[in-house]
């Protein structure tokens, strides 16, 4: 697991000239205890709530109430921040971050990607991962979401849901389109180049669909096309990608004898190495009412 899956997004930062009073108010408003300090777009320090406490008050009552403490109200972030903070790359393994936190006694790391602060990882975040590992039933975080797409109506909604969840968790998304195995067999029998054209058309369509759904979001969607039994292929790829969640659209259809064909989501739940989120097609909720 990489620390990019633990990041608080978007990164909440402050500047060195910000008054301590304002920095503390920002921390309280956003429910955080550490702020990366940015100057000219670069990380120059880390401000912890504890640093502010130390600067603003004294544990000695006589000093704490003394008049000369008044000028402290004019302190700015640069006066108390920790300079030269340890910064990590988003691809840093969680284990490596935990080792550094222990060895260097760091409570929070700024996570920097291409000189830009991408977020903060705290000791509490790392402990949450440890807690998840010790208690296997407790998912520590979403690192990867596999969205099973199709060319049927409603697939876009499933992909949108996958992107929404992944966005909230900072997880990567793969959109997978699986062509049924029968077409592969037809291709093997050399039925013409029609099947190749169909594969290419599906590849373009799923890529277009993923791109459209991802428009306006700061997320990369990797698009893949596979062939084979659909549920098995999705489950197999989820295993290979170490996916934490599969998102799939639901639908009903009738077989040749008129009976309801078991939906993909129902088959997938039995095969999947991770939980499956079955997303109804748009309007299903209203239809159900």
């Amino acid at each position, binding site marked *: 697991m990489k620390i990019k899956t633990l990041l608080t997004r978007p990164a909440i930062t402050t500047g060195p000239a910000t008054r301590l009073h304002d920095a503390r108010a920002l921390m309280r408003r956003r429910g955080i205890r550490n702020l990366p300090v940015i100057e000219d777009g670069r990380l120059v320090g880390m401000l912890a709530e504890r640093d502010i406490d130390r600067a603003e008050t004294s544990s000695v009552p006589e000093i704490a109430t003394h008049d000369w403490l008044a000028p402290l109200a004019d302190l700015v972030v640069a006066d108390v921040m920790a300079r030269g903070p340890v910064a990590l790359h988003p691809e840093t393994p969680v284990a490596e971050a935990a080792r550094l936190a222990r060895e260097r006694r760091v409570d929070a790391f700024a996570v920097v990607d291409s000189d830009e602060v991408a977020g903060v990882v705290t000791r509490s975040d790392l402990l949450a991962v440890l807690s998840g590992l010790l208690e296997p039933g407790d*998912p520590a975080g979403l690192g990867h979401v596999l969205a099973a797409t199709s060319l049927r109506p409603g697939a876009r909604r499933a992909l949108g849901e996958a992107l929404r969840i992944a966005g909230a968790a900072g997880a990567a998304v793969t959109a997978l389109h699986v062509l049924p195995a029968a077409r592969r067999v037809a291709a093997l029998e050399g039925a013409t180049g029609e099947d190749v054209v169909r594969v290419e058309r599906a590849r373009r369509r799923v890529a277009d669909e993923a791109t459209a759904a991802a428009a306006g979001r700061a997320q990369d969607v990797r698009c893949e096309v596979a062939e084979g039994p659909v549920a098995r292929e999705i489950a197999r790829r989820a295993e290979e990608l170490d996916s934490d969640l599969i998102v799939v659209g639901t639908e009903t259809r009738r077989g040749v004898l008129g009976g309801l064909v078991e939906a993909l989501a*129902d088959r997938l739940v*039995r*095969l*999947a190495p991770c*939980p*499956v989120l*079955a997303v*109804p097609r748009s309007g299903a909720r209203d239809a159900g009412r």
Partner: protein
Amino acid sequence: MRSSPYARLLVLLDGTARGERALAWARHLARGPGSVVHLLMVEPAARALRAGGRTVAFVDQLEDGARAAARAYLGPVAARLREDGVTVWTHVRVGRAAQIVRAVIEELDADVLVLTDGVARPLPLHAAPIPVLMSGPRCPRFA
């Protein structure tokens, strides 16, 4: 603090440890401000119990007993979630699971239904009006 993708999560429980595995994901998805987890248990409608031609337990008595047992089960489960900072409400209903789950989804305006495979599934996945999060038998975190 991360935001949650869902504001109202409905978790269907059946009183078993297997069913409680859904709580791990509910807890995870409910992280962040503003999310509420609703725990639901559906007890089947009771039938009057007769012995020797006499009614020894009436429907309302049996259903009251089932409700009380369900509440007694849900209380500690909800308390554990609250300890983790999750806002939790519990609901006990009597009747047919499919109808009740649909009604509760509508009543609570739930965003997602969370359950473990093996818990009596109230309705097929493709018939659910909202997204359904389900972990199956091969899911190592829940096996």
